[in-house]
């Protein structure tokens, strides 16, 4: 027995059932050939209805004006930016799984990276809506890009973190989309070669770009993936760093914090993995992928949750300590106000969901219990939404001048728009699992023999 076999036996197999390569293709790709299941149809209908609600409320808001939101003189940013950061954060897990885990040679990523990356793209699309509609006149969005113009060639402010955000988010969306598509090509070709439908053959013939699996192409393909992973890794870290700059470069107590970049990145990974778990626990059941997205995968993701949840907890503590230690009375007030003021309920929801609840995952019994993990992942999503709400709204609502202190509550327009963004997210995700291979078939085949018991 060679050394490699020895190591393999110490690991649990990545695919639980004995499969041939053909069966792997069948398991994943046959789901695309069949008609939609009842559950898919129900889910899709609900998603499209919520999307319609979102589109309608956005239409109303654009026709009427930003005054339809609950913002006021003191709180000029609230749900809009909260939701933006919430969705961008969720959009961090996909690239982390596909790029960083590729560089670290984590083979378990293969069966979840496709769906996680798709989720990333859809989440970033949802995030992109908020800055656009906050402009009030979204048809002038192209003003955000530097181009020679008739306003005396008046340029953008390149020193503004909001502009950095424009570049960061659009680069992130582009590179993630390209990376995802490159990963899809071999599987698109597999569909082209196996499908019996003429229409599908035609469509997949076009979008698979003439892939034939030649070894010389594979060689370049693997190098390309490695390069893209190498570029995407610092990119994914930069994106949330820059999002945190939106706040950290201001002078508002509670925002002006040097810990923000790493704190936001850890939080983004945390929330992203929360959403991946929510989606994949359902997807594996819906699409019968239990042998591919195994309990081991769920467990590994739970471990990432423990790590990033603890990092977020540490950041909360550090922030609080530094607010006291700085001796700055405004800074101190903001933090004490967060924990004990009128928005204390939001603060404690955040702490219990993000810091306390993931600690339960130290128990193997709990992290292998899928119902428990599913519920916990919902808690993570809620907690991370509240984190952004707490950072943004509570820092603003009691500013330097007590006479201008105010409270904020969302209007029905904001609530409908937020629900609508979930509609968009789930509509896109459901379309994805219906029409494209949700598991990277060629990658799973590549690692299938890894740790499989030898007969």
């Amino acid at each position: 027995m060679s050394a490699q076999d020895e190591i393999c036996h110490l690991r649990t197999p990545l695919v639980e059932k004995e499969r041939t390569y053909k069966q792997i293709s069948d398991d994943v790709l046959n789901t695309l050939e069949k008609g939609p299941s009842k559950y898919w149809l129900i889910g899709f209908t609900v998603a499209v209805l919520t999307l319609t609600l979102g589109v309608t409320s956005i239409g109303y808001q654009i026709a009427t004006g930003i005054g339809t939101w609950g913002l006021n003189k003191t709180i000029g940013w609230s749900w809009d930016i909260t939701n933006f950061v919430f969705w961008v954060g969720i959009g961090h897990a996909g690239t982390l799984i596909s790029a960083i885990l590729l560089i670290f040679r984590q083979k378990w990523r293969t069966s979840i990276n496709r769906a996680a990356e798709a989720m990333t793209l859809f989440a970033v699309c949802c995030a992109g809506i908020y800055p656009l509609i906050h402009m009030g006149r979204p048809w002038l969005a192209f003003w955000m890009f530097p181009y020679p113009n008739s306003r005396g060639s008046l340029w953008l402010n390149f020193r503004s973190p909001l502009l950095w955000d424009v570049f960061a988010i659009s680069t992130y969306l582009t590179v993630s989309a390209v990376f995802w598509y490159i990963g899809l090509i071999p599987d698109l070709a597999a569909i082209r070669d196996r499908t019996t439908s003429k229409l599908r053959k035609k469509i997949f013939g076009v979008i698979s770009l003439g892939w034939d699996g030649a070894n010389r192409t594979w060689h370049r393909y693997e190098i390309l993936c490695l390069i893209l992973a190498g570029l995407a890794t610092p990119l994914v870290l930069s994106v949330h760093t820059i999002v945190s700059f939106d706040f950290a470069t201001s002078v508002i107590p509670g925002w002006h914090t040097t810990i923000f970049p790493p704190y936001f990145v850890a939080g983004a990974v945390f929330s992203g993995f929360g959403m991946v778990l929510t989606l994949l626990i359902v997807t594996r059941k819906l699409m019968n992928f239990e042998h591919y997205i195994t309990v081991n995968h769920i467990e590994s993701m739970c471990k990432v949750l423990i790590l990033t949840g603890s990092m977020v907890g540490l950041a909360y503590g550090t922030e609080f300590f530094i607010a006291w230690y700085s001796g700055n009375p405004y800074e101190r007030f903001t933090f004490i106000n967060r924990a004990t003021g009128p928005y204390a309920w939001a603060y404690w929801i955040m702490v219990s969901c993000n810091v306390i609840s993931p600690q339960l995952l130290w128990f193997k019994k709990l992290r292998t219990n899928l119902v428990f993990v599913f519920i916990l992942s919902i808690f993570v999503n809620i907690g991370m939404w509240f984190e952004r709400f707490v950072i943004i709204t509570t820092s603003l609502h009691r500013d330097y001048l007590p006479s201008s202190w105010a409270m904020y509550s969302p209007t029905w327009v904001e609530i409908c728009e937020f629900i609508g963004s979930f509609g968009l997210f789930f509509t896109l995700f459901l379309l994805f699992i219906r029409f494209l291979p949700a598991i990277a078939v060629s990658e799973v085949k590549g690692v299938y023999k890894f740790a499989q018991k030898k007969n």
Partner: protein
Amino acid sequence: MQKQSFLIGIFDDEQKLVDSTRHMVGKNYKIHEIYTPFPVHGLDDLMGVERSRLPYVTFLAGGTGLLIGLLGQVFVSSVSWPINVGGKAFASIPAFIPIIFELTVLIGALSTVAAFFYCTKLFPGKKVQVLDKRQTDDKFIMALEKIDLKEDDQTVMDLLKNQGAVEVMVKEL
């Protein structure tokens, strides 16, 4: 286009394919190409595939992106429309770093992908004739061009069969 005819051996196991490739290369057969449903490691060396030069493209394009970001922002804020903000420097490089970085990554990544498509000749709607439909599914196909073969077909076919090929045949494309 002129038709090429190939002698192909179909394998169902990547280890047998690698062993057979080693054997065939050792016997000085010229392998036209090997088609696999997923990357099989070890074939590159055996087939003498040179290491791809894609990383150089990334480096050059990334460098270009970096320069565009740096020079563009310096031009805008100190040449085209300088604004005096409390006497601060016009070319405040540290504030330009985020956009420089993003442009480096964006142009680096897109150019590498474009270079990949260019040198692998992949493009939307390309008509491709696969030697065997199962090569994107579960079979590994070794293709030898008939012009390169000195022996008659049967000898080579028997040879491939002995190496573990489950099917051997002659195909024209």
